[in-house]
């Protein structure tokens, strides 16, 4: 029996059509697109086509608004650092507590360099307070960076409204959309978003390719200076094969957009309902009514996520967890902490993220596999007794270090 891969928010399988489209660019079409001769010229044409495919997926007005980068993280760093460089008089950044480390680590570093960083808090369902956000918009803000969808819970953020609010106040707005692109229909030309990050490997393109969408007219300072590639906005010889791959992946994502929001969503809902029906003391984290169609994040109380993953892995099911142990840090996921999920549940969160390759049979297998694994670990847990948590008066209360 083949293994079941439900960790598509971490990375995805490269689409077979993408692989086929890429292959010639390692061998026959190896030219440098900057060269005048025919070897380079054909590659240049292929890149142009790929750029247009990405433009179409994002609904950008111009293909020159698409800047290829090496990954989503590079796009994030480029966006934020550019805003600070281009507007040196502005010293404040607004972001959220639940961003990906690609944003949070950079912002923490910038805070240590003297910038002011406001991290918007979230409520128990992972939602932002827009009134509080409005009150922070000032002339000192260089950039607002808010993710389109959260990678752990799939919760969607109102980035279109937030971008409009920033734009009205004359402030640049960036969104890390690596989880949303390909799953959420977009039409950036009708939005007030200035910059947006894409990561190829989240939508069945290879790893090592990303995009920064840069609205025409947005003041910009490159992260990498050098050659004239990407119109001087991102120097460095183009990763031609991967760009071609991302172009095909963008076309395919557009073609599967409806499938993603109907069939994939149906399977996700089935998986979630099936697991919750069979496992007591488990709940969905984030905002179930407003999230990506492919993501289910379930907290299993009184047990620990890494142990769950190891046992799932043993029966051929791949998922991920917000537990401390899976990350090598001592704290459980900052996203779970931010939503005020109790420690005994935060450590036991498991994220199942589906893709267009996920089948009904796979979902059925997971629904069957999870309950006994949870029961097995609860039997070992000091917080669990018989069929439920230890009663309050006998509750396990260890000496905390």
């Amino acid at each position, binding site marked *: 029996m083949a293994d079941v891969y439900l960790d598509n928010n971490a990375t995805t399988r490269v689409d077979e059509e993408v692989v086929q489209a890429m292959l010639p660019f390692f061998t026959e079409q190896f030219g440098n697109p900057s060269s005048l001769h025919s070897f380079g010229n054909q590659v240049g044409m292929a890149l142009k086509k790929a750029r247009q495919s990405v433009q179409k997926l994002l609904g950008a007005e111009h293909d020159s608004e698409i800047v290829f980068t090496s990954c989503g993280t590079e796009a994030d760093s480029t966006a934020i650092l550019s805003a600070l460089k281009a507007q040196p008089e502005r010293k404040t950044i607004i972001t959220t507590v639940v961003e990906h480390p690609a944003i949070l680590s950079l912002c923490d570093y910038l805070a*240590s360099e003297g910038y002011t960083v406001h991290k918007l808090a979230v409520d128990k369902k992972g939602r932002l307070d827009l009134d509080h956000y409005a009150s922070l918009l000032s002339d000192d803000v260089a950039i607002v960076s808010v993710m389109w969808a959260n990678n752990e819970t799939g919760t969607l953020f109102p980035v279109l409204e937030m971008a409009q609010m920033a734009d009205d106040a004359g402030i640049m707005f960036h969104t890390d959309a690596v989880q949303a692109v390909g799953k959420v229909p977009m039409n950036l030309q009708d939005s007030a978003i200035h910059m947006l990050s894409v990561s190829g490997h989240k939508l069945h393109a290879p790893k090592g390719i990303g995009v920064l969408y840069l609205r025409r007219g947005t003041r910009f300072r490159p992260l990498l200076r050098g050659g004239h590639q990407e119109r001087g906005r991102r120097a460095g010889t183009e990763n031609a094969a991967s760009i071609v791959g991302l172009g095909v992946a963008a076309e395919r994502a557009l073609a599967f957009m409806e499938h993603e929001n109907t069939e994939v969503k149906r399977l996700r809902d089935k998986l979630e309902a099936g697991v919750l029906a069979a496992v007591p003391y488990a709940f969905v984290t984030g905002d179930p009514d407003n999230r990506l169609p492919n993501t289910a994040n379930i907290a299993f109380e*009184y*047990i*620990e*996520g*890494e*142990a769950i*993953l*190891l*046992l799932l*892995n*043993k029966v051929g099911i791949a998922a991920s967890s917000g*537990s*401390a*142990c*899976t990350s*090598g*840090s*001592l*704290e*459980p996921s900052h996203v779970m902490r931010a939503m005020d999920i109790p*420690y*005994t549940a935060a*450590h036991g969160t498991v994220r199942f993220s589906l893709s267009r390759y996920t089948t009904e049979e796979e979902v059925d297998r997971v629904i069957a596999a999870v309950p006994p694994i949870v029961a097995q670990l609860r*039997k*070992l*847990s*000091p*917080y669990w007794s018989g069929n439920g948590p230890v009663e309050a008066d006998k509750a*396990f*209360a*260890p*000496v*905390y*270090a």
Partner: protein
Amino acid sequence: MWDYSEKVKEHFYNPKNAGAVAEANAIGDVGSLSCGDALRLTLKVDPATDVILDAGFQTFGCGSAIASSSALTEMIKGLTVDEALKISNQDIADFLDGLPPEKMHCSVMGREALQAAVANYRGEELEDDHEEGALICKCFAIDEVMVRETIRANNLSSVEDVTNYTKAGGGCSACHEGIERVLTEELAARGEVFVAAPTKAKGKSKSGLVNLNAPAPAPAAPAPAEAAPAPKMTNLQRIRRIEMVLESIRPTLQRDHGDVELLEVDGKNVYVKLTGACTGCQMASMTLSGIQQRLIEELGEFVKVIPVSAAAAAHAQLEV
């Protein structure tokens, strides 16, 4: 996924002694829920002999926390309470054929649960001064609390100092940014400014590598080197001097659960055996060259330190 040993997997998939022991007369509850681990250890101890008759665990934690708990219960059954208390967290890790550095705290938790259970059995109050922070150095599993406290206690001011006192930063050096950050904060707290050492790719700088001459955090007696060693020593004097040098290095090695043993001296060749955690350590060759350097300085002549493998050493003397 983590690089767990087969032994860890075995104890995780099929844990021994899971669940509470009936008629337990010693219970130890420990944990640090923020890092996702909590453990209840229950023991049944014979009050007449102090022998642990049965042990059981209940653990909220990851694979290695469950494996460490299972290992601990297997190790202590049949021991007296005093014998059991001699088990260190390193012993638990060794029993499991090692744990990844990020997971060593799981074995620490096992040991703490044992201490707590014994305190409970004896009706004592357990003083818990253990505290841990985020891991800074992954090569040697040193956390931020340890780095910070060592900087404070010893008034350290450079990355090299931190490496010498804690080993943090002595491996791949990727954590030097983190150590510099802690140094900057700690120096600021005592009214000083952190200044980094000049960057040098090559040269005499010893930075970054474990220095055997480093003072131990506890006041260690520095080897009273009588300057200008006599030009000619008898063979016996020479061997005694070599032993003295090894003796002065030993505490440093033992701090890291390693040890060194002198096997033979043959002219310029000094045959030694590294034992315990030193065997298979990434830093073993550094350790040897450090020993060689100290010997050359002490003896005032060139010697070559040659490691003897455990197998070869067995011929020379009984295996330890």
